[in-house]
């Protein structure tokens, strides 16, 4: 089922938002966003441990988006194709925890890979995730982006929480991938 991306975005930016963005993602944008998050968490007097956790998760989540956002299929309203389109939101929840929410287009062949990866990660215990991390770290393989597939494992290992995700069949073989990450104290 396709979703209306604008309505979804309006929904996820409700609440105590630290940062939200919808548009093209670049290395410079990531630098500025990370600086903003660091300052904002300091102003909010969050504990150092939580600040570091949020910062680390944001680095991996944003760089995953940077490396893996495909082309946005033609925008139904403007008819334009926007490169490196992504949505991301960091917000504080009423209970003091944080949510990172992201959305981006992925091509159909990648959907199964991502689902399998996240299901596997969700199924593993924290100790098993630590072992998996070490195995991938030492497997001598690099992806063409340099990451080597560690990002999703790293986030789960740091947060200790399962991924919430959904894929929405939008158009012409493109899916919209919504991901929610919970970061607790």
């Amino acid at each position, binding site marked *: 089922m396709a979703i209306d991306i604008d309505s979804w975005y309006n929904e996820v930016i409700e609440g105590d938002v630290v940062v939200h963005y919808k548009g093209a993602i670049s*290395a410079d944008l*990531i*630098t500025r966003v*990370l*600086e903003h998050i660091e300052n904002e968490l300091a102003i909010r007097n969050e504990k*150092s*441990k939580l600040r*570091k*956790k949020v*910062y*680390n998760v944001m*680095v*991996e989540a944003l*760089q995953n988006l*940077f*490396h893996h956002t495909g082309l946005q299929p033609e925008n139904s309203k403007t008819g334009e194709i926007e490169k490196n389109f992504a949505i991301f939101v960091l917000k504080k929840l009423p209970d003091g925890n944080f949510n990172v929410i992201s959305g981006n287009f992925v091509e159909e062949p990648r959907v199964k890979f991502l689902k399998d990866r996240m299901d596997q990660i969700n199924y593993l215990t924290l100790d098993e995730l*630590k072992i998996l*991390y*070490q195995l991938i*770290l*030492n497997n001598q393989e*690099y992806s063409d*982006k*340099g*990451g*080597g597939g*560690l*990002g999703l494992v*790293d986030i789960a290992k*740091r947060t200790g929480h399962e991924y919430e995700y959904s894929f929405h069949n939008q158009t012409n073989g493109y899916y919209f991938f919504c991901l929610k990450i919970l970061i607790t104290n």
Partner: protein
Amino acid sequence: METLTILGTPKTPTVEMNVDSGIIEIKGRSIPENSIDFYRPIVEWIDQYADSAAPETKVNIQLEYFNTSSSKCILDVFKKLEQVFKKNGDKGVVINWFYEEDDEDMLEAGEDYQSILKIPFKMIELEE
């Protein structure tokens, strides 16, 4: 062979690798989008250094943050240092892994490397 100095940026660490003293320092943040390009000259430098290494090589790693893209490159740096260690024997190389006192993740990251490699590691806690 010359000392290698790389100035830090918001996304990359300060690097100082001194061929005479055998002191290698990597400090700051390592969160670039493409770590392979950043770490290439460092790995190449150690490759050369291995042939004429100081009797003792002291490696100080003091990172505040590093991303997963860097983590594999840092392992490559350590694997090159492992070769220096194999040549120089017991006191040849020591890696000082610094971490802030509440940063268990950073300590654990150091222990991950320690378990993969055969070089002496010292975990050093920094007080805030």
